[in-house]
């Protein structure tokens, strides 16, 4: 009986560990001429069946990405240079069988696209590339760090208190690029 109990607990823990959680991947930041381009991807975001169910039901569904660029200070609090919030919200139209994706940066609509293919939509929602997102001016890029986090879902604490379910902060150093600025 005790062995069975241990086995059950082990199985439960193993399954939990195997369940992939959403996370920020491939975070990269490049600085060129005082401007920082940020790109990253959100993995495992569509794994939750609730997410896809919500998406297919026509609810506006999406992610909110929080991106910060900070200057690391040893033995002290980091100096936040700038922050940015990107929202990708998709709404499914069951009549036309299309997905409308709204892409907002810092509350401003950047683009609005229609997708008929869920895979394309996934790609568009989870792959972020923001050229020249931050301006660091004359600051030295190698001292800068970009970090990103995504709010992937909304939950309730004690069935009552609304809270966002987010990924862990992902951090990367800003690399300096020698490429010419985009014109």
């Amino acid at each position, binding site marked *: 009986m005790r062995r069975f109990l241990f086995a059950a607990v082990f199985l439960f823990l193993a399954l939990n560990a195997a369940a992939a959680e959403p996370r920020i991947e491939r975070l990269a930041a490049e600085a060129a001429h005082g401007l920082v381009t940020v790109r990253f991807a959100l993995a495992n975001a569509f794994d939750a069946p609730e997410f896809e169910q919500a998406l297919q039901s026509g609810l506006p569904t999406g992610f909110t990405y929080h991106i910060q660029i900070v200057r690391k200070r040893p033995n002290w609090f980091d100096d936040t240079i700038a922050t940015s919030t990107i929202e990708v919200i998709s709404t499914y139209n069951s009549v036309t*069988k299309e997905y409308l994706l709204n892409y907002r940066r810092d509350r401003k609509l950047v683009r609005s696209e229609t997708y*008929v*293919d869920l895979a394309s939509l996934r790609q568009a929602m989870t792959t972020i590339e923001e050229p020249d997102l931050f301006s660091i001016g004359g600051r030295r890029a190698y001292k800068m760090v970009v970090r990103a986090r995504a709010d992937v879902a909304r939950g*309730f604490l004690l*069935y009552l208190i*609304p809270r966002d379910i987010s990924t862990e902060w992902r951090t990367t150093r800003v690399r300096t690029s020698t490429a010419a600025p985009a014109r």
Partner: protein
Amino acid sequence: MADDPRQNLDSRTGAMKPSDILRYRKDPRFIVALPLGIAAATTVIYYLIQRAKELSPEALTNRLVLFVLWNINLLLILGILFVLLRAVVKLVLERARGILGSRFRSKLVATYLATALVPIIILFIFATDLLRVSIDRWFNTPVSRVLENSSRIAEAAENRAGEQARGAAREIAEELAKPDVDLDRVLRHVSGYHAIDLVGAYREGSLVRLIANPRTPINELREPPPKYFEEVMRRGELRKIDVGPGGKWIRHAIRVGPAGRGQVAMAGVFIPITISRMIDENLIAYQNFRQLDSQKETLKASQTSLFLTVTLAMLFGTLWTAIYTSRRITVPVQALAEGTRTLAEGNYAHRIDVTATDEFGILIGSFNSMAGELETQKNALTESNAEMQRINARLDTERAYLSTVLENVSSGIIAFSDSFEVLSINRAAMRILQLGEAPLRSRIDQIVGDDLQPLRAYIRDLGDREPRPRELTLTRGGEIRYVEVSAARLETGAETRGWVLAIEDSTQLVQAQKIAAWSEAARRIAHEIKNPLTPIQLSAERIAKKFRNDDSDLPHAVEEGCRTIVEEVGHLKTMVDEFSRFARMPAVHLRQSSVAEILQQVARLYADVKPGVSVTVDAPADLLAVIDPEQIRRALINLLDNAIEATSSGEIVLAARRRDRALSISVSDPGRGIPEADKEKLFHPYFSTKKRGTGLGLAIVHRIVYDHEGTITVHDNPAGGARFEIEIPA
């Protein structure tokens, strides 16, 4: 100067004074504002609840609504916690400070909260659970299956049209993939063969050829965007649905040949609005249902939040009401307890200044009345006490004065009770009675002893009749003392009754009087003896002379001389007898006697003694008195003797009457009367107005009356003459 609000604060607790709080609550503005405020709050809550019912699921699951609801709940929770903590801290502080009524208030608040809080929380938990279960049930009912099936039917209808378009597009694409093909013929063939509403071909995103059913609203249809064709080129085929006012177009595009050629074949089916609307409604209904399903938890949270808001509002109201009501109850109780304690500390001027209209008002009124009564009684008691102290001080002074007087008076004063217990005795009494120390609480008969028999007899007879002063001769230790004793009733209330005995030591006075009396007696005796001696001497010298001269008249002279000598010697003898009788006055022997009989006996002695003078008796036959009859008879004889001598003619009246507690005997004569100057010394020994009187008659009368503890007085008789009146206590 404006009122300082801090003046209304309790110096100990820092809170408003109970009286001020209740006075504030009696303010008409407060009385009007409170129900209006409650009514307004109730209206707002009711309005919000009604509006909440009307909120759509989208609105209820709105993030902002949830945020607002949660913040309202948070504010309410914080408000409840603040009010609760504040009340708890206040109660704890009040209990720590020992403020009266705090324990009662704690219990009251706890009871209120327990009775209100527990049901509300249970109701909230039960209702929330019911709500969550009900929401779960909404999505488990057959409705979801019906909606899903209808949605699938609608989708199947659409798919069928789409598949029809896809088949046509595939045929077009296959034909166009062949070399040298007539595009127009192919399109017409496919359009006719498949009875399809729209067929067309595109190259590089541009329309090459399009054939449409003229009965369809082709003008509502817009060209697909370039991105669409890019997607078709990438994926090989792609369906597109367009909705217009006339109906719905389902187009399907298929890449022609390899991707590099850029040719796309397209076919479309038009679904009229009457059918497409039903399809879309089914799809939308199911979509809405799925939206709700996916937002089930949010919906539950929002409903629970809304319910929690109402519950917390109720809790807040209940809590506030509990504190308010408990304060309203405990403030008068606290004031009463405080007042009772103040009263117990002796501050009777304290009044409860709390306005209450219910039973507490009656209680406070009764308390204030009681305090007023107590204050009045206390003031009266204080005044009485002060008066008592003044009286005691005065009594002490008087007692000291009296004690000093008593201790320093020459008369002996003894106070004793009816049981003959000595209450006080002064120094003079102790000296007179030769006592060593104050015999307080001893019996007076033990003090007096057998050797002071007269005083003992006087004391013993005190209760029998009205006490009168007495002269007593006391012998103690071989020493003779002449004292004058008088007694007075001691009336000091019901408990202590007795006598005050005054003993006047008149030994020296009596001795002086005796010396004076003896001197007077010697002088009078010498005078009285001298008077007869002169005729005797003259008679003897005359006889001797006659005898020497051998006078012929000698016999006559002898005879006359002898007669004179005999008369004078007889007179001397009478005088000696009188003196002897006066000196040998016997003690009185009192006994019950008939006064009328004594008077009759005396009157009979003097009947017809003197012509023209009659003696009559006027006395009740049954008049009895405790007297010595012999002595009284003797006294009356002396008085009647004098009256007959003084009366030439007329009636002498012997009268006797009982007057109050005394026997009154009078002797009235119509004689010549007594001059005023003689009345004072009439009873002195040896005073006489008669030529041959001894002056002892009235002195004897006076002595007899005195021995009877009576008095004798002389008055002018209204009919002329004199009237002697004797009064003897009986």
